[in-house]
């Protein structure tokens, strides 16, 4: 993997964010809500509104507004929330932190469960275990988060009273309580991931097990475990890396719903609130941050892949 390749990928991230910023800004520009009204509320008088518009630079031509906004963003200034009057940047970054924590736990859980499941299903292909795994995974990928979340709350929080229903406590504030509050959200988001990835691992592994080199390894008289762990897994798991990265996008989507239900003040919840209250700066910043998270995740995945996969000459 040549530095040139890395540079190229980084440049691509830049381009990505540029495009996203354009889209997001365009959308927020046409949103059916007057920013000034949002800010001042229903009691604002015409002159007050006018004053605010000038103050917000809403009177300037769109491209100029975009330019100003972009420059601001580049300097890390995402503007001021129209709901709270607080600067958007720090709030969202903090929120992102919480979401990433959620995502991180979810991915860890996923890796711990999905990979073994996939392997078992693949080597027991066609057997009951395989069937069991694939049935569950089919169900897993087919239940929307808000449904699974609701059921989890109903059972684990209301009936069994094992876990707090919702709410968020920073780990720094009270670690034990913080973790307890994270369990349900993490479970909810990881279900679909686990289901999806385990299926991927299975099919990848099944394919690999059909390759000539695996046959060759067997015919060299290597033990079954050596064939599986040394020869097959490595090749089967490589593509999974990319899949996991792509799932990050899905994860971020799921996070929106999950945070809404579990009152987890992460980036997703911020976005929902921002969208509902037409808080344009927050929407713009939120979407941009989410997109960059996704872009970076994929970047890292590609890097890992390039680093692990000896075949491809990245030049």
């Amino acid at each position, binding site marked *: 993997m040549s530095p040139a390749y890395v540079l190229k990928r980084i440049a691509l991230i830049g381009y990505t964010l540029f495009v996203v910023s354009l889209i997001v800004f365009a959308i927020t520009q046409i949103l059916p809500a007057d920013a000034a009204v*949002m800010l001042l509320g229903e009691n604002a008088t015409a002159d007050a509104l006018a004053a605010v518009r000038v103050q917000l630079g809403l009177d300037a031509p769109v491209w100029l507004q975009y330019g100003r906004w972009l420059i601001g963003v580049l300097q890390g200034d995402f503007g001021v929330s129209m709901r*709270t009057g607080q600067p958007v940047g720090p709030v969202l970054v903090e929120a992102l932190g919480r979401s990433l924590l959620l995502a991180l736990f979810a991915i860890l859980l996923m890796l711990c469960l999905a990979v073994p499941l996939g392997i078992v299903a693949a080597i027991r292909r066609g057997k009951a275990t395989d069937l069991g795994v694939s049935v569950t995974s089919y169900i897993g990928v087919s239940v929307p988060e808000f449904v699974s979340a609701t059921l989890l709350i109903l059972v684990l929080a209301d009936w069994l009273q094992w876990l707090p229903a919702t709410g968020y406590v920073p780990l720094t504030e009270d670690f034990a309580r913080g973790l307890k509050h994270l369990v349900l959200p993490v479970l909810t988001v990881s279900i679909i991931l686990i289901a999806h990835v385990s299926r991927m691992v299975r099919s990848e592994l099944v394919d690999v097990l059909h390759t000539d080199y695996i046959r060759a390894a067997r015919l060299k008289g290597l033990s079954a475990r050596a064939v599986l762990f040394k020869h097959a897994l490595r090749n089967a798991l490589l593509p999974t890396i990319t899949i996991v990265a792509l799932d990050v996008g899905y994860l971020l989507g799921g996070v929106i719903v999950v945070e809404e239900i579990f009152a987890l003040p992460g980036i997703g919840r911020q976005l929902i609130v921002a969208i509902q209250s037409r808080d344009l700066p927050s929407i713009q910043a939120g979407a941009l941050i989410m997109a960059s998270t996704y872009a970076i995740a994929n970047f890292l995945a590609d890097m890992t892949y390039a680093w692990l996969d000896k075949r491809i000459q990245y030049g």
Partner: protein
Amino acid sequence: MSNFDRRQFLATSAALGGLALNPFNAYAQAAPRRGGVLRMSVDQAVAKLNPLLTRVNPEYLVAELLYSGLTRLKVDMSAEPDLAASWSSTPDLLEWTFVLRRGVTFHDGSACTAADVVATFEAILDAKTASPARQNVGPIAKVRAKDDSTVIFTLSAPFADLPVTIAYTNAKIVPAAVIKAGLARLDREAIGTGPFKLVSFEPERQVVVARNDAYYDRARPYLDRIQIVVYPDSTAEGSALISGDTDMISTVPPTEFARLEKAPGVKGLRTPSGQFCNVNFGCDQKPFNDVRVRQAVALTIDRAAMVEFVTEGYGTPGNDTPLNSAYRYYANQALKKPDIIKARALLAAAGYPNGLDATLIASDRPRVRTQLAVTLREMVKPAGIRINVETMPHATYLDQVWKKGSFYVGFYNMQATADAIFALLYTSNAAWNETRWNNPAFDKFVNEARGTVDDAKRRALYAEAQKLMHAEVPSIIPVFFDLLAAQRDWVQGYQLHPRGAVFRLDHVSLAANAPKRA
């Protein structure tokens, strides 16, 4: 309180001023336990911290903890002293004098004097501040400080309710210095005279306040801290209370109430209130500019069923006037019964022999707006009215429909006085003239009433006003909601306030069996 004259009135208020020290408390019990942390959940984010600009109940709640007004509302909707120790007015009700407590200080240590009160009210009355209080504190023409502890309000019209209206949720006193420096500062911090001080403020998550030891009342507040946590999902909010994760829920939706009541260790709180949903007609646009059409729609509604559908029974039928028994000047009139034949006739007379189509707009918050719309849609069907329900985000609604639309659902807290609600929504010069009904006769009744001290006369005038609304239906008010809340049984001294926007948490204390919280 029949035959109520001014002397008596002044006497009472003075007395109340004295009373203020031993707290008004529903269950007369032994001295409340001091200390403890109360965790209360609210269903909406606390976006605005600036007390002059707060707009939703959770924000009012926080503002009330951090700031004080001149007066505050008791559970019976009468005014009790807050910063003002006592008050009086000239016979013509055109000039009101409020005497402030002495030695009250803001959270930053500076003294709270008449100057601050004047500055605050000037800010409120300044259109640029865009404070909802502007149209709700009464017809104040001028505010001036007679001395450090005396404020004089000069009114543009005789007004008897000033002590009550001045307790308006947004009429909180803030330091003159801050106003001069720019109110923006109050978006992030709180400098008030309230019973609590701001500790932390995270709009989407929680607001934490701690006891203000410099509070003018030595006894209150009892709690060390209050954590106000945001739960956007009501089901989850309920579960949190049941699991003991929270101590109180500020507002419980009817659908959750039954479950919470059943839960062990949880007490459901319920109080009848003047809070209502109204279906507003644009009285200046076809087809609803024709009174017969409005009456027809009103006649299709089975109000008892509506109470069931919309409030799960936790409510009372409305009669198309904003007043119900919770209001002092409520005039009881025959409850409208559904009468489809008559409705059809009226429609035909109005030129809609085969019914009409209309789009009813309901914002998505609170949800009950949509519920009402959907229910109405079904109820008007037999009369040949085909309603298409259109829901939209609250923000869009405020921007595009509210005060402009011709057929949409509104939602209002109970106001402190009849005048307040009339002047807020239905008079020609109403702050939020939703219906553009602009009925001179109605205006006349209301205006006359606000300048009348004689209770009987006043009651009569308001009765006339209500009769008029009942007949002309500028907006349909099919149900009033009982306010619902819930608390763990270790929470003491909390009384659900019918106003909906008033909480008085400084009266709340925690029993010994309450969970210890950091």
